């Protein structure tokens, strides 16, 4: 029973992190058909910006309580600035190109972002543990969990819920769904698709940065963290169906629970379990569980 509860909480916690780290990736793919490898760079930028700012803020003797505001603020700044520079400066000149070419372009951008983080913050590790520690722990059947980790689950639910509500209950969201469904038809209906591209890319970049910024207080922020997250995020959106936000939720839950189950019951298969699940899903649904329907074009 104890193990089952631990698997449930750990699985949910890991799934929340996965969802926050991958939802921006799937959103950008859904709207723009760009598999944005630079997403890992946004995650790293958010993590560095957050850890650096929290460190600076706390070291000067300020109360930890306000440091929670730094996390979203730095995520928005990092995501917006980097997203705007990349979308306006590079990607807008390449819309309509082959998807594989865009993967190469965004991979190049990812490498540039890696170097940008090193230029700004150097190669030393940054730790910003204060927000994670300040909330304390709660015991669930005798196992202590940090309240911060549980709060991240809450943030993931809020992010997912807000995205769902925004897409289904607002005019802009509904128009965005039309763009996701078919760009050509959306353009023919008079929707300014290019404008949606810019807005979507900024939202996606900010979500990526938010994933990093929220994670920063739990980890040591070091060069290379972006490369690690992009692999996991890719697994999540492939399982869920590239471009599908509900797919990202389900994909994150599947990967989160597969990993937690393996760690508790059979640790040697921890990494293998994720890719086993991915292979199993793709064997049955080659385009993922919630793949976007592709119209037959003549």
């Amino acid at each position, binding site marked *: 029973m*104890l*193990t089952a509860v*631990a*698997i449930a*909480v*750990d*699985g949910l*916690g*890991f799934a929340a*992190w996965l969802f926050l780290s991958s939802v921006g990736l799937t959103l950008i793919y859904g709207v723009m058909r760009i598999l944005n490898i630079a997403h890992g760079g946004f995650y790293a930028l958010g993590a560095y910006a957050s850890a650096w700012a929290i460190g600076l803020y706390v070291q000067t003797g300020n109360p930890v309580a306000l440091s929670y505001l730094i996390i979203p603020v730095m995520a928005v700044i990092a995501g917006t600035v980097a997203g705007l520079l990349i979308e306006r400066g590079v990607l807008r000149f390449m819309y309509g190109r082959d998807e594989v070419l865009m993967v190469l372009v965004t991979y190049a951008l990812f490498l540039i972002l*890696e170097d940008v983080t*090193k230029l700004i913050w*150097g*190669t*030393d*590790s940054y*730790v910003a*543990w204060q927000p*994670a*520690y300040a909330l304390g*722990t709660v015991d669930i059947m005798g*196992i*202590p*969990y*940090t309240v*911060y*980790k549980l709060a991240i689950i809450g943030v993931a639910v809020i992010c997912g819920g807000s995205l769902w509500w925004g897409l289904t209950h607002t005019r802009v969201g509904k128009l965005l769904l039309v763009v996701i469904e078919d760009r050509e038809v959306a353009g023919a209906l008079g929707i300014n698709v290019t404008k949606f591209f810019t807005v979507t890319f900024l939202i996606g970049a900010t979500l990526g940065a938010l994933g990093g910024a929220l*994670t920063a207080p*739990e*980890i*040591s*922020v*070091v*060069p*290379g*963290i972006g490369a*690690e997250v992009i692999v996991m995020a890719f697994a999540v959106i492939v399982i869920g169906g590239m471009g599908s936000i509900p797919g990202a939720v389900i994909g994150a839950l599947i990967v989160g629970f597969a*990993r*937690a189950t393996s*760690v*508790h019951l059979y*640790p*040697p298969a*921890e*990494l293998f379990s994720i890719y086993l699940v991915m292979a199993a899903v793709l064997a049955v649904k080659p385009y993922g569980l919630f793949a976007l329907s592709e119209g037959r074009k003549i």
Partner: protein
Amino acid sequence: MGLSTRILQGSTALVMAAALAAPAAAEPVKMGIVTFLSGGAAGPFGVPARNSAELMIEAINAGTLPAPYNSAGLAGEMIDPIYVDENSKQKNADFQKLVEKDGVELVVGYISSSSCKAIAPEAEKLQKLTVLFDCGTPQIFEDIVTEPKYTFRSAATATMDNVAAARYLQDTGVSTQKVAGINQNYAWGQDSWRDFSESMNILEDSPEVVTEQFPKVYAGQYGSEISALLTSKPDVVHSSFWGGDMEAFVIQGSARGLFERSRVVLTAGETAMYSLAKQIPDGTIIGARGPHGDLAPESALNDWFRAAYEKRFGTLPTYPSYKMAQALLGVKAAADKAGAADQQALIGALTGLEWEGPSGKVSMALAGGHQAIQDTAYGTFELSDDGEAKLVNVIRYSAECVNPPAGAKSVEWIKSGFNGTSCN
């Protein structure tokens, strides 16, 4: 012939004679230095090692090191370093470029055990003197290059770290009925856990292993693993995590009370001792992969190294810095002993060499004189009331006590009950 012509001829002859008599300016010794300059291992390991290389090479060239290293250069020849990033997908090609294009006389480098596993056979194939300065897996000379000619390792293997960790637990009377491990899923982590758990089987009469966790390197998120450690209630948790992974494990594990419920042994914990002083609970057992950093014995060389490093980089050197200094001093000692700095002279002198580093005596005692051993030490972390991080209950172990004897394979030596070992 006029007087002026004779003076001119005489002067020319003198100048030519002086030019011929003067020794030709010695070519500098090109040395490849390979450490992580990017990626997750750069901050805690690669950059401190590179910093140490810069400091030591400048001091060696200038002859400003304390005795017995106070002569300039390698047997009088200056070192010309070429720095290369270990964080590369083409490590062997990078090594090949150093040898064939840059024409280095020797290579000093490699932090990751995976790198060393790839480079050691390459060094033998290209017949290039290579001094591995940090990587820990004992496989290098036990399984991969069993008869080395060009490859040396100037630091002891992970076996030393883990045998000493087990001995420290025994010597400090820590309860060890149930043990658990969390180690990275590659050669370093697997070898470390194997050597630790086998040592515990001998020293503590086979304690129960309640869980063995092997997350992938750079995973960063250890929530599930920490829950598994908490639910399995071990007396001791062993971890050879390093760098950012180790720091993340400390942050997450400490926040959830793991370090209070179990005695945690961090065999490579020294690099986080100061940066995470408030997160590492008192009682955590800390190693430095040798008697480095806070565990280094007092000596004029150690005092010079700490002061010079702190003055230049604004922080005290951690063990990767010590290990790079140790490697470079080994090369200098070999060159000075041979009286030359060419590859053959260096190989001849390095084989079986004993030299003093900032961490004490180092002996190329294993693998036919190509693998170093040295004393080591462990301590228990304590944060004093004035916020100073320090290690208490430090216990030192002689090199012969925690390293296998020549000719023995690490794991077989441990399983034999440390046959042929003296631990005085």
